[in-house]
């Protein structure tokens, strides 16, 4: 069964890459100059709430749910089990970056849409219309945007391209950027790079 999503505001690859790069330059420029991994946990724990007004939290979640962001409640939650699992460090980092993407891009999108609906219809609650994911164009798909953002934040294009040019393997890239090899593959494809 295909999921139903609320379309986000349109965002191009370039716009998402720029958002991620600006955050890196502002919060941890050594990612670009000294080859550090982006410290997504510190960004999530220390800066995200101040930047977005979205409260961050770690909770026990249902099996198979690793995180969620709720624009009504203004919360961004990561699974406690995932955070504490030493074997899932890379997946934890990408999940956190993905939810950070939702908090940065989609909470304000959805709250603004709801406010507009409320003002037009003069109702207390504005419910957003959902669409089948397959009917949403890619550049308005919030899940695609959040994953693209996660890739751009954890594997910033300038550092990633430089690493690829130096002739490394997929495994090296995975360790260098602290993400799973599958995510490296996706990033290679989205930047149109080959090893």
């Amino acid at each position: 069964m295909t999921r139903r999503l609320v379309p986000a505001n349109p965002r191009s690859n370039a716009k998402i890459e720029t958002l991620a790069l600006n955050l890196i330059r502002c919060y941890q420029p050594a990612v670009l100059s000294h080859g550090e991994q982006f410290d997504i946990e510190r960004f999530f724990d220390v800066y995200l709430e101040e930047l977005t007004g979205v409260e961050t939290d770690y909770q026990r979640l249902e099996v198979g749910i690793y995180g969620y962001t709720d624009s009504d409640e203004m919360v961004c939650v990561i699974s406690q089990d995932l955070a504490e699992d030493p074997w899932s460090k890379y997946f934890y980092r990408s999940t956190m970056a993905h939810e950070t993407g939702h908090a940065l891009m989609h909470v304000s999108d959805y709250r603004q849409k709801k406010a507009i609906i409320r003002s037009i219809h003069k109702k207390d609650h504005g419910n957003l219309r959902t669409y089948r994911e397959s009917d949403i164009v890619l550049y308005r798909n919030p899940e695609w945007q959040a994953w693209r953002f996660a890739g751009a934040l954890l594997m910033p294009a300038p550092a990633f391209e430089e690493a690829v040019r130096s002739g490394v393997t997929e495994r090296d890239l995975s360790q260098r950027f602290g993400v799973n090899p599958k995510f490296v593959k996706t990033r290679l494809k989205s930047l149109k790079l080959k090893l």
Partner: protein
Amino acid sequence: MASFGLTLKKARISKKATLREIGEYIGKSIGYISDIEHDRKRPPDLETVSKIEDFLGVEDGSLLKLAKKIRKNMKPSLSTRFKQKPKLKYALLRAEKIYEDEDKLNKLLETLNKLEGE
């Protein structure tokens, strides 16, 4: 009274520390620290709060003072109360046996209400 969780969170953020770093310093999980920050759990014991203050460089003892005040006004945890009053544990375990029988449970609650009213 100020929230211990919120006070801890503010101190942590001003130090730019992660939940994991505090957790590792006091030997607790991220989940535990998050539960404390969101006031889902009571403040830790005073020795642990003191350690947190050391880690975060809280010099005015504000976390410790707040934890003392909150802990003073709080009932001891259920496990502590069971240790102090073993018959309470026995009574609850007996009550659990009739938990599925709504009539019996209601009768028990009525009896308790009467006894409380005496």
